[in-house]
C-alpha cells in the first residue's frame, strides 16, 4: 500500500477544491454527450438491423414453406392399376356376385384423397376376403363434388363403363390421384389412361364430349345429396353407413354381421 501511495502523483490538498477549467469541463461534457448519442444511435441501428433481419427471415421461411407445399403438376407417367381377378363377376359399376348377401356401396369422388386410400388400401382386401368368395358385392356411385376434374374423371369412368372397363378405369384413376384440379385428370390424361387400358378411343372421346355423360354424373351427385350424403367416401354395408371404414376390424365386423 505504501509503495502504491508513493507512486501516486503528488497533489496539493487544495487541488480538489480548486475551480475546474470551465472550457475543459464543457469539452468533457460535450464528449460524454456525443458518446451517449453515438451509443444510442448504435443501439437504434442494431434494433433496425434486428427488425430487418426478422422480416427477411420471415419472408424466407414463408417462401420455403410455400415452395415445399406448392401445387405440382402430375408427372407424365400414367400408372395402370392391377386388374381385378378374372373370377370376380362384374356388372357395370358393381363387382361381385349379384346374389351376394352383403351389398357394399361407396359414394366417392376421384379427387378425394380419403377415397383414394379406400381404393388403394381397403378395396383389395375387400376383394380377396369378401367379394371373391361371394360374400359381398361392391358398388361405386359417383359423388363428384371436388371441382371440375372430379366431374371430368367421373364422366370418363362412365365412358369406360360403356366399354365394360369401369373397374380397371376406376382403379387406374385412384392410382393416378394427385393435387386437386391441377391436371391429374385433364382430358389428355384421362385419354391416356383409356388408351393404356386398350379402350376404343373414338367411342371414349365421343362419350367424354357428350353432355349427356356430364349430366349423368351431375344426376348421380344430386341423387347422393338428396340421400343426405355430405362426405366421401360414404360407405354403406347393407344400407348402414360404416364411418370408420379405414379400421379393417370394424369394417370386417360390419360385413360379418350383415352376412349373418
Amino acid at each position, binding site marked *: 500500500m505504501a509503495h502504491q501511495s508513493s507512486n501516486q502523483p503528488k497533489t496539493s490538498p487544495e487541488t480538489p477544491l480548486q475551480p475546474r477549467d470551465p472550457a475543459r469541463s464543457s469539452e468533457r461534457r460535450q464528449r460524454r454527450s456525443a458518446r451517449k448519442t453515438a451509443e444510442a444511435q448504435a443501439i437504434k441501428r442494431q434494433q433496425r438491423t434486428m427488425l430487418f433481419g426478422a422480416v427477411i427471415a*420471415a419472408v424466407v421461411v414463408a417462401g420455403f414453406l410455400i415452395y415445399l407445399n406448392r401445387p405440382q403438376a402430375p408427372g407424365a407417367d400414367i400408372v395402370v392399376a392391377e386388374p381385378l381377378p378374372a373370377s370376380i363377376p362384374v356388372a357395370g359399376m358393381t363387382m361381385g356376385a349379384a346374389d351376394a348377401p352383403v351389398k357394399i356401396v361407396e359414394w366417392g369422388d376421384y379427387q378425394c384423397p380419403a377415397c383414394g386410400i379406400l381404393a388403394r388400401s381397403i378395396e383389395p382386401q375387400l376383394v380377396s376376403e369378401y367379394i371373391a368368395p361371394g360374400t359381398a358385392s361392391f358398388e361405386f356411385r359417383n359423388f363428384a363434388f371436388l371441382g371440375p376434374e372430379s366431374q371430368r374423371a367421373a364422366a370418363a369412368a362412365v365412358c369406360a363403363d360403356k366399354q365394360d372397363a369401369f373397374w380397371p378405369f376406376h382403379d387406374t384413376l385412384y392410382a393416378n390421384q394427385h393435387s386437386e384440379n391441377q391436371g391429374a385428370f385433364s382430358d389428355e390424361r384421362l385419354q391416356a389412361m383409356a388408351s393404356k387400358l386398350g379402350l376404343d378411343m373414338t367411342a371414349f372421346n365421343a362419350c367424354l364430349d357428350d353432355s349427356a355423360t356430364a349430366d349423368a354424373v351431375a344426376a348421380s351427385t344430386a341423387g347422393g345429396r338428396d340421400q343426405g350424403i355430405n362426405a366421401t367416401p360414404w360407405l354403406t354395408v347393407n344400407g348402414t353407413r360404416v364411418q370408420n371404414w379405414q379400421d379393417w376390424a370394424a369394417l370386417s365386423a360390419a360385413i360379418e354381421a350383415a352376412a349373418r
Partner: protein
Amino acid sequence: MTATAPGRLMRAAAVLAGLGVLLAAYLTWVHFNTGSLVCGLGDCHTVQASEYATIGPLPVAVLGLGMYVLVCAANLAGLAQPARALPLAMLAFGMLLAGTLYAAYLTWLEVAVIRAICQWCVASALLSVVLLALQSSVVWKLLQGPLSEPEETSDGPLAS
C-alpha cells in the same frame, strides 16, 4: 401510461396466441382423428385430408400450433423479463409474419385448388393477421421506449 402500453399489448397478444393454440390444437386433432378420414362438403375434413395439409410427415396444423405456442411464450417471457422484451417481441413478430404469409397462401389453396373452405383454418388465418398487427404495435412501442412494469412510473428504473 405510455410506458405500460406495450405491456398491455403483449398481454393481449399472449391471450390471442392462447386462443390460437386452442384453434390449432383442434385442427391437429381433426388431422390425426382417423375416424374423420373423409372429404366433407365445406368442412375441415376435405382440407385436412388434402395433400396440402402436410409438409412431408408434418401436419400444417402442428406448424400453426408451434407458432401460437412460441408467440404466446415469447410475449409472456417478454413481460417477465422486460430487458429482453424487444428481441422476444421481434422473434414473435418474425414468426407471425411468416405464419401470416403462409396462412394467406393456404387460404388461397383452399379457394383456388382444394375448393373447400375450412372455417377453422380461415379463423386461424384471420387470427394470425390480428396477432401480426398487435405484435407490430408491440415492436413499434418497444422501439420508442423500453418496457416498464405497470406499477413503475415513467421515471422508474426500467423506464430510464
